[in-house]
């Protein structure tokens, strides 16, 4: 009997986590499956921008339109996998296919493994844009990954706010709706671009000329120092430009955070990228290893990309030139 409180505590914790994951799972379904039209602010790097999103799930699938309301009126239109980006500032329109996006499996198979590196919990209720929300926090247990917070509408399960947080729990990136209409019909005209693209340079993706991706062989490079829990989840040899040498792409993930390691197979030029760079929560670190450009990119803290980039080595016995 004396173990009962402990058992109850452990079982209670597991149930609480599963419930928190269930909220995230429902949220992911809502983001893809609901009709909505809203305005949100996007805060990053001490900059604040406003954008409007219109999303529809109809008989023909998912359609979405995203418009920048501040600065140049850039637009992204998505019709299932077909993505059109209109950039008035560079007078260009890009049309192409996005990679198929798998539904976000918020309740991962390796929940037990994730719990070693993250604490996932419901931390309270809040009100955003007039909606009552439940707040879910995913907190990393070390300094090699970011945390997340989601404010999820209790009724529709749509998210109203999401924060990506650093080690001190302060937000690095925030998305917050200031107005959101959920569930109503979306007029077709709302999913049409406000710009015609007349007089713009049009770019079209040409799949027939796409560089072949190869996954057959083992990577010729390895990362010696990885944060605990990160494993190689994908490897490809691909051409990033039509006229460039092939690049090795190694993808590492702990089940939640993902880091890409790019190693260019050609010799590095005089303009090698060395050191830290980034955008919003994305960090990148460049290094030159054995005359090859190594670039590590991820939605992880700077310390993680730096540690990984600094420990890339050629596999013993492997060719790398």
């Amino acid at each position, binding site marked *: 009997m004396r173990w009962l409180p402990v058992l109850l505590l452990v079982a209670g914790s597991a149930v609480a986590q599963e419930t928190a994951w269930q909220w995230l799972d429902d949220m*992911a379904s809502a983001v893809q499956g609901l009709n909505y039209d809203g305005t949100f602010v*996007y805060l*990053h790097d001490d*900059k604040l*921008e406003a*954008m409007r999103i219109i*999303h529809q799930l109809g008989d023909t699938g998912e359609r*979405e339109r*995203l418009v*920048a309301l*501040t600065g*140049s009126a*850039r637009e992204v239109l998505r019709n299932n996998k077909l*993505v059109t*980006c209109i*950039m008035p*500032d*560079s007078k260009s329109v*890009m049309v*192409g296919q*996005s*990679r198929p*996006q798998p*539904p*976000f499996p918020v309740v991962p198979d390796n929940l037990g493994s994730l719990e070693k590196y993250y604490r996932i919990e419901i931390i309270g209720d809040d009100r955003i844009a007039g909606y009552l929300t439940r707040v879910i926090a995913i907190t990393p247990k070390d300094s090699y990954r970011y945390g*997340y917070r989601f404010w999820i509408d209790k009724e529709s399960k749509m*998210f109203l706010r*999401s924060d990506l947080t650093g080690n001190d729990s302060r937000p690095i990136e925030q*998305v917050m709706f200031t107005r959101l209409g959920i569930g109503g019909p979306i007029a077709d005209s709302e999913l049409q671009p406000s710009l015609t693209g007349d007089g713009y*340079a*049009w*770019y079209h*993706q*040409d*799949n027939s*000329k*796409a560089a072949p991706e190869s996954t057959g062989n083992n990577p010729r490079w390895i990362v010696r120092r990885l944060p605990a829990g990160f494993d190689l989840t*994908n490897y490809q040899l691909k051409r*990033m*430009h*039509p*006229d460039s040498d092939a690049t090795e792409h190694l*993808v590492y*993930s702990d089940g939640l*955070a993902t880091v*890409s390691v790019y190693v260019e197979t050609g010799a590095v*030029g005089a*303009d090698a*990228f060395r*050191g*830290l*760079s*980034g*955008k*919003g929560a*994305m960090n*990148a670190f*460049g290094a030159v290893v054995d005359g090859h450009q190594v670039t590590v*990119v991820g*939605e992880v803290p700077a310390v993680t990309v730096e540690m990984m980039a600094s420990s890339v080595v050629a596999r013993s016995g492997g060719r790398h030139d």
Partner: protein
Amino acid sequence: MKDRLHEQLSALIDDELAEPEQALLARRVGTDAELHRRLARYQLISDAMRNQLPDRIDPAFTARVQAAVRDESTQTSSMPGSRRLAALLKPVAGLAVAASVAVVAVLSLQSVREDPAALPAVASAPSSADFIRADNTPAPTIRPRTDKNLDIYLVNHNEYAVNRGMHGMLPYARIISHDMSRDSRD
């Protein structure tokens, strides 16, 4: 063949074409109107990039430079030659840049222009008295080649991120966001 000629034109502008080839190319340009127009366009862009335009230019001229740069930047992406010129062109073509380069990358990493035959008119004489000083035109910001590569990597990485579905539209928000890059390089 055309690509080879375009490559030679680019090398000529970059002062990298051997003298015998220069003479041959000059004769070819003299008899080929399209090549002549292309040479004029390359020269115009090159002058603009090197700040060798006259002190006083008319606004229409600026627009023609921009059109020429834009046009060429789309074509050089699929052209084997013009590497140096292309390196000059690309940062200017996307002055708002990071995002537009990134978008090209998110879509395919490879792009082709829909109508490569449609070329912008260039090099007509200024006809308006409404001149502005060239100094007042925004100076092109030349950014390292690595910025372009980095954008491509950032966007390519997004496609593989396990948690990208979490943020719904956030990857796209990043793309249409403005001036968001930061650096602390060695």
